[in-house]
């Protein structure tokens, strides 16, 4: 079948996007539309002395100016972090209060203190300028390491010394012992640079209060509209769930930044009730840089010990994670359960310990960004492995292969149980595709042209398919991470799938339909996918953590199982056969080995006319399911990057990038390859171009596309993408997930390649020409001195 599992089906959602007919939140315009503009702190830390709204309120077209005292006065709750992480001494994490509009204190540049509602966006922005806020400035700390120093400015009284938690995993004594017996120890200080996710569509919200029905509708740029509704209702008291509809229409990319429920969405809903107007807010890009949660920002020291044979004897990591000025929705889990649990990499490491301190700083809140913790782990492990190989005089592939895990299930000392994988197969496939054997000749040829050529590896593993609810609940998660689906077979046999997963670029309208087309042997045109609306879809936990395939599609499979069971019963009844003999084939429901058959549409019709159903059977053909995964999934693979560095300028060109991934079952290779391309591009961005920079005063100085550099077409090569898969035993389709792999696996491959080229392992991301040139000069000077 050309539209089933494994087929390169062209995307069904494309037509509206390529013709300009996509419907994004900012495209929504309601009757009675008013516009919001936020008054934001220009300083990083201050007491708010007064807010003078009078000038703004006098302006024509200004409907109201609202502040945090009014917001909290109306009982709107503080923004929460939904994952409770416990410090190693048993104490709960120290979470400071975060109001959607600051009342007493502002803690980062961009912290909102008031909102103007006006007739047009331009008027709202002008009036926001006229709101006079008096700030009493306080000392600022913008960097994580400095925030932990004695005497650092105190950001939240709930978190003494700005420490949110001091957490550990693994066995410190065993790791120390392992390091003590090592014949070689590789030590590194590794920084994971702070990034801004930057989906191309800025965040937006259109909130409408219906006074007659006492009901709210929110259109918003969300990866998980049901979670938004849940949190807005249960924690922020904006409206009870049955009085709030959240719609995430077409969403222009998320990458994590659109998981969270931000102050703006809360404020727009509340303001819509206050003003009895539909309130619309859309971030401009500069505003997005100070309101979208940032990602990464770790400082780590690591020690890895090896025996004489190159086997890892012990691994110890100490990390400081910057969470910004407030704890965003999943912020606490990112540098702990999504990071340190992956520090075993693809390797059999028996003695492993990680300590993580999370700190407040006067910066934008930090939360999950594509990969979320796993890129930080992978970068650390893979830089260590490559550097160790160089120090030990071994080939990087050889050192890795010596330590590969080969038996599954494999339990790591950091609580993960890897279920499947064939790391040798990915390594071999990548090495062959990258023509590693031909590299010395290419390096020599490049040298003749005055270029430094380098090769770098990264063997990544990630935990995806997030996540088994009871397991994450035991680790402090405030929600379950199952997924829900509903399968409706209509009387004429067409099929509607309602899913709690949300598609914002992933192509679910195509891939989800493929598994249904295959299962019921129906034309894909007869299948539609519905998502993104809490009034339509029963529930859902949304799309992040590469979970839509492994968890979201599994829920659909579970609902299809129920539908199929009913179909069999109806067919067996009508065809006077045993249920066990019924097969779905060629668009028909047949008795195996006979010519007795019913058309698929006839089954649908029979279910709804209910003229001739088995005794006691309910009419209708619609089933729903909730699927809770039994384990994480573990996509893994090998990435090999080849670069050429111009020693005179430090300019680096990626000449070849090869990926071999194990994603388990692949539904649509075209879409999976696209996910890998995009992930690699973001990883290359982190490795070579991107960095959020704060100055000492907590001013964000990379707040536009002129200052924050994302990869453009000419910065990237064509990618060579391959698959060597093992089936995931944990879910019915055998899927592992592919959304984050590229962003997780690629940064160390790029940096390992550049450090190979310049002969200096000491190179920080982003490897800008200036950084590369300096590192090369330092290496050359050192070499000359020797």
């Amino acid at each position, binding site marked *: 079948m050309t539209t089933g599992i494994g087929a390169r089906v062209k995307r069904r959602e494309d*037509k509206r996007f390529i013709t300009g007919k996509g419907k994004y939140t900012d495209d929504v315009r309601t009757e009675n539309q008013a516009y919001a503009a936020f008054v934001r702190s220009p300083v990083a830390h201050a007491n708010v002395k007064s807010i003078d709204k009078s000038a703004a309120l006098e302006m024509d077209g200004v409907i109201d100016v609202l502040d945090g005292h009014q917001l909290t006065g109306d009982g709107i709750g503080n923004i929460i972090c939904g994952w409770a992480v416990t410090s190693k001494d048993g104490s709960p994490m120290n979470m400071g209060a975060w109001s959607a509009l600051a009342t007493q204190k502002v803690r980062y540049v961009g912290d909102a203190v008031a909102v103007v509602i006006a007739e047009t966006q331009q008027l709202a922005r002008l009036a926001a300028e006229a709101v006079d806020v008096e700030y009493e400035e306080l000392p600022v700390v913008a960097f994580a390491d400095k925030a932990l120093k004695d005497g650092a400015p105190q950001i939240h009284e709930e978190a003494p010394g700005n420490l949110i938690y001091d957490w550990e995993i693994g066995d410190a004594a065993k790791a120390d012992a392992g390091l003590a017996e090592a014949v070689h120890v590789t030590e590194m200080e590794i920084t994971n640079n702070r990034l801004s996710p930057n989906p191309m569509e800025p965040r937006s919200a259109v909130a409408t209060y219906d006074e007659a029905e006492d009901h709210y509708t929110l259109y918003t740029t969300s990866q998980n509209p049901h979670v938004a509704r849940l949190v807005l209702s249960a924690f922020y008291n904006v409206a009870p769930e049955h009085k709030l509809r959240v719609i995430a229409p077409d969403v222009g990319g998320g990458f994590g930044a659109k998981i969270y429920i931000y102050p703006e969405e809360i404020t727009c809903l509340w303001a819509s009730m206050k003003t009895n107007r539909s309130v619309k807010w859309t971030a401009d890009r500069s505003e997005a840089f100070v309101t979208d949660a940032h990602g990464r920002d770790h400082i780590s020291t690591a020690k890895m010990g090896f025996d004489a044979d190159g086997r890892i004897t012990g691994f110890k990591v100490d990390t400081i994670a910057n969470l910004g000025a407030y704890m965003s929705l999943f912020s606490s889990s990112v540098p702990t359960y999504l990071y340190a649990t992956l520090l075993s990499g693809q390797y059999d490491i028996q003695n492993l310990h990680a300590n993580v301190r999370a700190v407040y700083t006067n910066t934008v809140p930090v939360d999950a960004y594509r990969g979320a913790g796993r890129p930080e782990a992978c970068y650390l492990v893979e830089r260590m492995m490559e550097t160790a190989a160089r120090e030990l005089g071994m080939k990087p592939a050889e050192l890795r292969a010596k330590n590969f895990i080969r038996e599954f299930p494999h339990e790591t000392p950091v609580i993960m149980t890897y279920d499947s994988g064939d790391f040798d197969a990915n390594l071999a496939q990548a090495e062959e595709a990258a023509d590693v054997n031909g590299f010395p000749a290419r390096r020599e040829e490049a040298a003749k042209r005055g270029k430094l050529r380098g090769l770098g590896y990264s063997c990544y593993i990630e935990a995806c398919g997030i996540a088994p609810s009871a397991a994450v609940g035991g680790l402090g998660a405030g929600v379950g991470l199952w997924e829900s689906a509903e399968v409706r077979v209509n009387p004429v046999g067409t099929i509607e799938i309602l899913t709690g997963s949300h598609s914002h*670029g992933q192509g679910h309208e195509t891939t989800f339909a493929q598994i249904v087309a295959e299962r019921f042997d129906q034309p894909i045109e007869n299948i539609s996918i519905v998502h993104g609306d809490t009034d339509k879809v029963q529930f859902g936990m949304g799309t992040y953590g590469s979970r839509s395939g492994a968890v979201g599609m599994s829920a659909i499979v579970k609902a299809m199982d129920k539908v199929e069971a009913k179909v069999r019963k109806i067919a067996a009844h009508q065809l006077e056969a045993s249920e066990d003999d019924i097969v779905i084939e060629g668009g028909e429901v047949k008795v195996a080995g006979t010519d007795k058959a019913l058309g698929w549409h006839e089954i649908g019709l029979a279910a709804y006319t209910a003229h001739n159903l088995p005794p006691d059977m309910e009419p209708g053909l619609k089933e729903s399911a909730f699927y809770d995964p039994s384990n994480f999934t573990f996509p893994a693979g090998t990435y090999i990057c080849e670069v050429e560095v111009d020693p005179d300028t430090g300019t680096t060109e990626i000449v070849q990038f090869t990926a071999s991934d194990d994603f388990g079952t692949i539904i649509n290779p075209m879409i999976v390859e696209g996910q890998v391309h995009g992930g690699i591009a973001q990883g290359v961005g982190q490795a070579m171009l991107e960095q959020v920079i704060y100055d000492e005063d907590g001013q964000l100085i990379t707040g536009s596309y002129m200052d924050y550099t*994302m990869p453009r077409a000419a910065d990237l090569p064509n990618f060579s993408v391959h698959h060597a898969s093992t089936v995931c035993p944990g879910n019915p389709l055998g899927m592992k997930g592919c959304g984050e792999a590229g962003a997780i696996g690629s940064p160390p491959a790029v940096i390992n390649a550049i450090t190979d080229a310049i002969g200096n392992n000491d190179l920080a991301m982003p490897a800008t020409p200036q950084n590369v040139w300096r590192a090369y000069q330092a290496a050359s000077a050192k070499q000359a001195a020797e």
Partner: protein
Amino acid sequence: MTKVSLTVNGKPVARDVAGGTLLSEFLREDLRLTGTHIGCDTSQCGACVVHVNGKAVKACTTLAASLEGADVTTIEGLANGGLHPMQEAFKEHHGLQCGFCTPGMIMSGVDMVTRYKAEGRELTQEAIRHELEGNICRCTGYHNIVKAVEDAASKM
């Protein structure tokens, strides 16, 4: 307010616009042509690219009032029924994911192919990547966009 008369997607349009109204706002808010997107404030991302008198321009840095008599084409008006070869190629080669940058990419793609053909130059992959300098995509890594433009060039 300035009265401005122009042609948008083949239809005559006359409106009073404020002096500061950008073409992007004019298209999105006044004409409700929401296929032209706004992704940045600094003319960097190219989500707003449209054609003015046959040439690609960034609608976010063009004043509507300056377009008296101009002929504007947006993504909605690129094809007269059916799909333009560039639109077809983006679908065929999976040159889009979230779709937000796509209208600008397609308009830039059409512009570059038209220019190269007029000048008799070969539009190589390298040239396509260079020509896409003014368009940012965060989803695709450009790999399939380059393929799409290359393929469309052979069909335009």
